[in-house]
């Protein structure tokens, strides 16, 4: 049963890692704007979608 302590210890390390990642993310301002990045990632660079343009 001593293996339990190893498992618990490693799960703690993992969880603390996530906690640090969360704090880092908040400090970095990544959750200040939860809308714009969702739109930004959909933009293509420089190419025009011809099909959409014809519809107008």
């Amino acid at each position: 049963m001593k293996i339990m302590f190893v498992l618990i210890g490693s799960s703690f390390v993992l969880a603390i890692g996530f906690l640090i990642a969360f704090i880092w993310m908040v400090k970095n301002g990544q959750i200040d704007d939860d809308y714009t990045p969702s739109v930004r990632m959909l933009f293509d660079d420089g190419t025009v979608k011809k099909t959409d343009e014809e519809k107008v």
Partner: protein
Amino acid sequence: MIETLNKNTKTTCYHCGDFCAEERLVLNDKSFCCNGCKNVFMLLSENNLTSYYSIEKTPGKAFKQSIGNKYAYLDDTNIQSKLISYIDHKVARLQFQIPNIHCSSCIYLLENLYKINNAVVGVRVNFLKKTANIVYDVNKISLRQLVELLASIGYEPSFTMNDINQEKPKNINRKLLFQIGVAGFCFGNIMMISFPEYFGLDNTTRHYLSSAFGYINLALSIPVFFYSGQDYLISAYKGLRKKLITIDVPLALGLVVLFVRNFYEILTHTGLGYCDTLAGLVFFLLIGKWFQQKTYDSLSFERDYKSYFPISVIKINSDNQTTTVAIDKLKIGDRILIRNNEIIPADSILLKGKANIDFSFVSGEKEPIDKELGEIIFAGGKQTNGNIELEVKKLTEQSYLTQLWNNDIFAKDNASKVETFQTKVSKYFTVALLAIAISSAIYWAVYDSSKIMGAFTAVLIIACPCALALSSPFALGNAMRNLGRKKFYLKSANVVENIANMDTIVFDKTGTITQSNESQIEFMGNPLTQLQKELIFSVTQNSIHPLSKQIAQHLNISSAIILNSFDEITGKGIKANVGGNDVEVGSAKFLNITENLSNALSTRIYIKINGENVGCFVIKHAYRTGLKQVINQLANQFKLHLLSGDNEQEKNFLQSVFPTSSELLFKQNPADKLIYINTLQGNNQKVIMVGDGLNDAGALKTANVGISLSEDTSSFSPSSDVIMDAANFELLPKYLQYCKNTMKVIYVSFCLSLMYNIIGLSYAVSGTLSPVIAAILMPISSVTVIGFTSISTYLLAIKMKNRP
């Protein structure tokens, strides 16, 4: 390639979606309503940015005025330094407020600005705040050129006096998120460690595992208690010192008891402790708090006159040269030049030019006022008739209009003027809780003294009003979001509750229940011949009645025929003889005409020429659509009042719209409105003020709830609790009803959480509360309450949309 077409069919502009006038511009098979739009399209297609038009249809905004020298003040280094947040010898960075940001295409275009001008290093748009962070090369472009570039593609940044005078709150409070993170982390781990214990362990494993697990749990609960839960402890302590029992008192009591009992049980090996309950409680509470803290970043609810005035004005120096100066640098005696459509920044005397000032936003009067040379013009009016020259008489801060802000009401923070339902309940709740805890302790003192402490603390733990504390934040937070989706933006979630308690509504007239500053006139009947027009014009021109004046203005004929006779019967109509023709103008009753009455918000003026009915002029009031229905619906539940800065011209009509019990007051200045609201409140009425302009600012602030109507939510609106899209005016009764319904949801969920408390208490008083039951009951009750409030507020929101 470019040609001008004449077509009768209505086409919409490829850039902005407006209807193109008969003379439209065509380029590459695409129609444009104006040169401005066409130029933007050309600029974008040259730079390979036509994706702008494929992300969203017609994303542009029409802009028909030229930029000219408008931004000359940005060359002033003093103003520059206040706007730019970072600058070195190469680049500068600053944040612009761009009200026009409204769709995905906007983000695309602005972030690709470097393709149009390579002096732009980078742009980051924050869509929700409608801001753009721009880094640009100071050696290639000046701030003024950058702003002009933005303006030329339709994204004009807005600058107000506020931007340069006030420090913006820089860092958003992220503490709550850290607290949630820590609480969540501890909660998860404590749960994981506590689980084996709940499922049962055989005796040998229990022996060495459970004490180790206990210590780990204890260690994890320390940050939860001292960091994540600190706000509840502090707020309860502060409340008690002011002799206030808020919901935080029983919460803090529960937290402290939980924390102490955990230590006692684990260190003395007498039990498992309730670490998971403690962590879960704090975690859920913080989530509720976070949910309630939603704010609308792009809207400002705290604006004062400073954000209404421009930053700078053109000053005329003694040598007749002009310079731009910041408004706060203006001195008494300075000569300033105000161009068409500019706002007068300070009380001043007219020196030169034709002043025709529109005060509708400031005083509520809808007609622009002519001013003679030498007359005082109050700050805040808008010049509508060419350039004028003025001499400053009073500084902006001391002008007639801005003095309103010196009233005490603007210094007071009246956030906590109404006692919330939650606070009311928590008083009784805390007393009942303590009574039960103490009586169960007394009971066990008599029958089994070993259970005294166990039962006493268990009562305080299990009755800890977590679900109770969650129901308000979730119901109100949800309601706020649902209303926000319907363009009814609340300053904070608590406003929902305030609205639900109101019993009186005061309306402003101009801009609030009327739509624009002009009413429309149409002629109904066979088209008038030129002679008939001249006859009617000659008659109406001679009358001083406002309606006759409007008709005369509408006909707009230069030559009048001399009248033979003219007889005006006040309030009814005119009989006249013009060059041998009998002309009668007036109401249907006056001319003995039977009219097909409709409920439309319009006034009809009938015309008889030589005894023959030729038709009528329909004067549509620019009242908002559905005004009558809105007033009728509201009259059932509220006392209604009308305060107008305008004259009594439309009193008769308004009396027909408002119920007879309503007070209609005219010619009210901003201070009158404020005092009127105060008087109503003195009579124990709870007042909602609905207004739009600066003249309502005092009233909006004094009222228990101030709702400011805005044609464009990104433009100026005076400080208020609610900003509402004016286009949705007819939904006002539904919004108010929704707030009331939300309160009913809260009442029901309070009952639900009380039920859980009673179940838990039955275990607690009998001294048989095991950590498992506490650990199950607490989250279940919280989740039920959250689920119930979320679903029912959502269903109510759907109902709000569907009802006719």
